[in-house]
């Protein structure tokens, strides 16, 4: 029971808005001590895990390219492109991206798109431009909401597409775990059962994108915060 103190520290730390890096370190130390590890062992275990998970942080290598392109007006160009496409509405644009992201993830191409690679330079400015092309003069709050939806759409597309792919980590985890209990199951059986949820996720999130668009259109011309 005592090892749960780490979870309590995490929840309290996030709620009280302490620096999350400090909260994580405090939680790791408290959890390790509660489990009877000594401080050097905890630091070594954390260091090993940090080194083993460096691949999580390599996505930042795209920033020099994104920075270069943005300095030459990529975001403006993405916006003006959307303004010229007839029928490119906010909801249609984000729903198309959702479908594309789900489809790419379903064939295993999860790292092809993402927040630094595609959402910041392309999807978010295009979504803002689509709303503006529909006659909404975006306020700062509306702009933030559209950007948040662009990021959320990327997440939903990734999460509810990737498990259709046979060789993704989570499928391999399920297969390995159930084999340990004596159930030998082909990866295909797991991946087909990800399809109903993938469809439900598209319909549900797509519906919410329509609601977002309606809400924006109902309050147009609230002032430009650009």
């Amino acid at each position, binding site marked *: 029971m005592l090892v*749960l103190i780490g979870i309590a520290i995490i929840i309290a730390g996030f709620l009280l808005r302490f620096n999350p890096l*400090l909260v994580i370190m405090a939680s790791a130390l408290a959890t390790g001590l509660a489990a009877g590890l000594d401080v050097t062992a905890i630091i070594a275990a954390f260091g*090993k895990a940090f080194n083993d998970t460096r691949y999580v942080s390599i996505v930042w290598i795209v920033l020099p390219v994104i*920075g270069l392109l943005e300095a030459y007006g990529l975001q403006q160009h993405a916006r003006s492109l959307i303004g010229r496409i007839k029928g490119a509405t906010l909801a249609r644009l984000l729903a198309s991206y959702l479908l594309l992201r789900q489809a790419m993830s379903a064939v295993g191409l999860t790292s092809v798109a993402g927040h630094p690679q595609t959402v910041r330079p392309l999807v978010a400015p295009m979504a803002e431009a689509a709303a503006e092309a529909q006659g909404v003069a975006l306020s700062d709050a509306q702009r933030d909401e559209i950007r948040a939806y662009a990021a*959320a759409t990327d997440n939903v597309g990734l999460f509810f597409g990737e498990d259709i792919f046979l060789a993704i980590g989570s499928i391999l*985890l399920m297969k390995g775990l*159930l084999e340990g209990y004596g159930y030998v199951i082909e990866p295909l059986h797991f991946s087909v059962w*990800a399809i109903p949820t993938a469809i439900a996720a598209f319909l549900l999130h797509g519906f919410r994108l329509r609601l977002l668009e309606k809400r924006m259109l109902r309050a147009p011309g609230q002032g430009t915060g650009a």
Partner: protein
Amino acid sequence: MITLGFVYVLAGLTFAIFAALGLGDRSNPKRFGNAAFWGLLALSMLAGDRLGDFGNGLLVLALVAIAGTGQIGRAPGGEVPAGVQAERAARYGNFLLVVALIIPAVALAGTFLFKWVPGLADPKQATLISLGIGVLIALAVGMARLRPAPLLPAQQGRRLLDAVGWAAILPQMLASLGAVFALAGVGEVVGDLIGAAIPQGSLFGAVVAFGLGMALFTMVMGNAFAAFPVMIAAVGMPLLIKQYDGTPAVVAAIGMLAGFCGTLMTPMAANFNLVPAALLELKNPYGVIKVQIGTAIPLLAVNILFIWLFAF
């Protein structure tokens, strides 16, 4: 053969350049903190395998100390004026789009190429390696045509990373915390608690407990992979599969997706929820989570319903 080590060197050099440029940026009152932070990260990428476990642990402690005492910050401004951007956008137009799409296109092509042609690159890391190659090609093509000041990509990239700040390593830190939790047996304790809270004799009750447990425990751990073995051991295997004879593949597959609904709702999944808020410069750091809750909760209900309908 190209391995993930190539991408780590690329990342290490990128962070090292960011650190050096940061050190020289006198407009940033916290330039020493920034330089130390990105410099340590560069060291981790370049030489992490040679530091030893305890050495890496000390490196993490130093990173946490710098960020936790508020020693990193960003210089104001630095972006190219909007008017200049608009003028350049009109001139270079679709070329910019082509360069932006080089990165995903090379990642895509490389993923297939490295799997079909063995020996070129580690097939298990094909996409990440291709991502690194795509960045180099995009940078070369962009520099050749746009002819910017040589340091402009690095300066602008540093500005974007400084805007994200210490949150850039939050996902890696949380993944490491998960390893310590596993070492301490946190999962088993939570599993026992949830197992004890389930109403006896109700199939639907057990399905709800399994789905909700997956989502809630994923929210705590920030990761459905950590929650999955615990919930399968506590509820999925003894109750849903053994006692009520549910189809194992359905229970596992849709149970995992119920966990993903939890991922949409937690700051612990920093790379999906907090980092993009910083990257998109949202005022509310929880802005992405806020708009995701409305999708996650109904989808969780759908998943619980699907398990009940399809597994039994």
